[in-house]
Structure formats: C-alpha cells, structure tokens
C-alpha cells in the first residue's frame, strides 16, 4: 500500500511538473514544416462541418485556408471538440485554434486569444414549441442538454437552476433532445439560427428566450506567443479581414444571417 501511495505521488508531481513546456516560435516551425495545423470544429455548421464527401468545409475553414495561403504553406485540419480544443493547443498538437471559441477571461489564462475577435454570439436554447418557454427562469429544475466543455453550462445551472445533461458531440445532443431526454438544448444562438432555417427537421422547435451573455469569438495561438511575432501576425490577418470585409462576405457565402457585430467591426476598421 505504501509503495502504491509513493508511486501515485510521484505520478502526481510528474504530471503537474509537465505543465511548464518548452517555448519556441511557432511561426518559424510552421514555415519550416511547410504546413500549418489548425484545430477546427466539424459539428458546427456552417462554421465547420463535413460535406457529403467527408471533407471539412465551412466559414472557419475558409478563414484557416486564407491564413495558410498568406503564409504560403499547406493547411492541415484537425477536428476538435469544445472539451479538448484548448488542451490540443497547449500540447502542441495544433498550431492554431479556430473553433467557434468564445473569448472569456478564464480562457485567456490558458491559451493566447488574439485580438481582434472575429465573430460574436450569445447563448440561447432550442426547445419544443409545445413547452412554451419564455423566460430563462422557467428552466429551473428541468434537464437541459448541452455540449461538454461549454463555459455557460455551469453558469446557467447556477443562475437559473437548470440541470445540465451534457454530451461530447452535437449529434448526441440532437438525438437526446429529439427523444425528449431534455426540455431544451443550451448552445450558441448562432448555431440555432442556421438550424431553424431547416424547416423539415426543426419545425417543432423554437428559440424562445432572450439571447444572453453575448460573447465575442477568438482565434488562439499558444499562450506564450500571444505577444510574439506569431500572435502579431494572426492579429494583423484578422484586422485585415475586418478592414476588407472578408468576414462579412464569408458570412453571406455560408448563409449565416448577418450580424450587427460583424458589420460594426467592418465599419470601424475600414474607417481607421
């Protein structure tokens, strides 16, 4: 027993010590390798999804491709989910994280979220029309489906008393919602807007609540490189997108209802 304990403690200190990883310049290693590895979503249409041939496509994939083209390197896409995306970046499995991630102060301590932001969304629920929800408070005591790793699961549970039932992926959540395992699905309003356009599948559902906790989305580089040349480079690319209106164009290309936030950003940067 004593030996097992010592072993456990040794493992504990080993893995905690492993936190401090070596620093390097990712921009150089990307150019050296001739490719940039970007972590993207594949379950978030139309930002990141698979087409009928299984290729990853979407608005964020177009953005990633633009970055790769500007660098003159090849693009490699790695599918990530909300609950593992930051670890992928921390461990160097990906060079860049471009995966519908909301920019929060807590996340800024873990990964290097580059300014400016490139999109913004709030949170809402998708619920059966027959439930007739109208207030967030009405979620109290009801099971609410969600995605593991979303920052607002805890917030909605603490603030409104909802009981989160979370799954690893979107298909599981959709299945659970359709089967009636939860009263509503808590997610980004942007994801629901495009879903509700699909009348066939979602005609019995609505987005009944007032969108709350509007948060901008950020592209992330490894934390140590936010202020370095790599972070600077990505920052310039995003600024360029806002100036040229690239993001507004992509938004309409992918059939996303235009957001005021993006139009304002375009205006602001174009005026500068």
């Amino acid at each position, binding site marked *: 027993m004593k030996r097992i304990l010592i072993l456990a403690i040794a493992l504990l200190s080993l893995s905690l010590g492993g936190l401090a990883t070596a620093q390097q310049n990712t921009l150089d290693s990307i150019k050296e390798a001739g490719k940039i590895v970007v972590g993207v979503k594949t379950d978030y249409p139309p930002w990141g999804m698979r087409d009928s041939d299984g290729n990853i496509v979407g608005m964020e994939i177009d953005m990633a491709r633009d970055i790769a083209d500007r660098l003159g390197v090849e693009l490699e896409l790695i599918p990530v989910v909300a609950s593992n995306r930051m670890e992928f970046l921390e461990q160097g499995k990906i060079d860049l994280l471009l995966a519908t991630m909301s920019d929060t102060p807590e996340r800024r*301590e873990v990964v290097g979220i580059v300014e400016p932001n490139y999109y913004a969304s709030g949170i809402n629920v998708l619920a059966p029309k027959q439930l007739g929800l109208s207030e967030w408070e009405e979620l109290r005591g009801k099971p609410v489906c969600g995605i593991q790793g979303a920052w607002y699961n805890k917030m909605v549970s603490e603030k409104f008393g909802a009981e989160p039932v979370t799954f690893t992926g979107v298909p599981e959540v959709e299945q659970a919602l359709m*089967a009636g395992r939860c009263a509503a699905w808590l997610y980004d309003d942007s994801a629901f807007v495009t879903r509700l356009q699909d009348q066939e599948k979602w005609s019995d559902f609505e987005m009944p609540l007032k969108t709350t906790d509007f948060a901008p989305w950020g592209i992330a580089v490894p934390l140590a490189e936010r202020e370095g040349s790599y972070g600077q480079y990505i920052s310039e690319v995003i600024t360029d997108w806002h100036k040229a209106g690239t993001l507004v164009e992509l938004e309409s290309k992918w059939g996303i209802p235009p957001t005021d936030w993006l139009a304002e950003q375009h205006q602001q940067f174009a005026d500068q």
Partner: protein
Amino acid sequence: MDAVWEWFAWLNEAYGIKLTIFYDDYDRRRFFNGLWHTVALSGICIVLSLLIGVVGAWLQGSHLTWTRRLVQGYIQCFRNTPPLVQLYFFYFGVSALLPTVETDWGGQAPLLDSFQWAVVSLSFFAGAFNVEIFRAGMEAVPRATVEAAEALGYTRLQIYRHVVLPLALRFCWPALTSNMVNLLKTTTLAYAIAVPELLYVSNQIWSDEFNVPEMMNVLLVVYLLLVGVLVWAMHRWERAMRVPGFGH
C-alpha cells in the same frame, strides 16, 4: 471540515494547484455526487452481473437445445462487441423503440433514464463474461463429485445449488475478481450517455475551471482507491470462503 476546505483554497493561492472540488461548493457537490454515482453504478452492476452469471451458467447446462443456444448467443453478442457501442445501442437505439412517459416538466421522455440504461448495459456486458467464468469454474469441479451427488438422489438444481456452484465459485474467484475490477473501470464509459459519474463530472469541472492535470490526477487516485477497496473486499471474501483441500 471547513479548515480542510480552506487548506485546499490556500494550496491554490500559494502553489496554483487548483483542486476546486474541495473549496468550491458547486464543484464539491457535483464531484461527490459523481463519486456516489460511480459507487452506486458499480455496486448495482456487480450484483446484477453476478446474478446473470449464476443463472446463465445454470441455463448453459440445460437439456433444452434452444435454451443453450440463446445463452450462447447472448454471450457472443456481449463479449464480442465494445461496451461503448452497447451503451449507445441501448441508450439511443433500443430506447427509441420503447414507450415514453410524461415528465414532470410537461414533456415526453423515454422510459429509462441514462443511469438505468447504464445499469442494464453494463450488467449484461459483465454478465456475459461471468457466465463463461462460472462455466470454467463448474468444469473444474470433479465429475466424480457430481456423480456422488446424483447417487444420493439430488436433482439437477439441487446439485447446482449445493454442490457445483459453491465449489465452482471457489475455483473461479480470481477470474471473477478481475472481471469485477474491469466492470468498475468500465463504468467510466457511462459518461458518454451523460450519466453523472466520476469521469463525467470531472470533465465538466476541468472544462469550467481549466484544471485538467489536477483532475486527471484526482481521477487516477480515486479509481486506484476504489479498485483497491474492491480487490481487498474480494480477497477477504475469498479467504472467508476457503475450504481446506479445495482450490489453492
């Protein structure tokens, strides 16, 4: 108790080791709720899978061809498919075919919730192995012993209950212990169908608190302890059941 919680808060402030499960009320509640679900899920599945094993091994020796074939089919199905696939099959597949019930929030929910499906699925999974383990134990019982019981006028059920099963149990105990340890560890798969067990709640906590390395270590230590307790109990039981001259 508050002093202990405060010590962990200090540990975070002083050394950045962020064990929110001890000083954050919300995290502590969900972590211990998760621990409780893991213990309950393991306990119920162990009992049910043992029952399935005992009954299955008995039916395997049946004179009816179709009974034997059914048991064999069950074993092959559950032993040769991954437990995660079985969980999904039950939770998303079978569940859709069953009637729904009215929920207290005014919706229609499936008959069984995720915890109940996990119990069903994991019990059948471990039970399939238990049938084979018991069969191996029964085959180790000397033929002469069974014949002696038959000569004394015992029926097949009586032989099974009073002679074969008690001896078989002692022969197969080590294999049974391994399977139960495996079952306890397999309960982590239930996180995939949103059963709030340890891995599931830990995943929630590290997503919210960004303390992945700390929670990974907590998980490792907790499972080491849980399996340790299980193995210790099984060994105690084995020694208590020892019949001099049988087994080892």
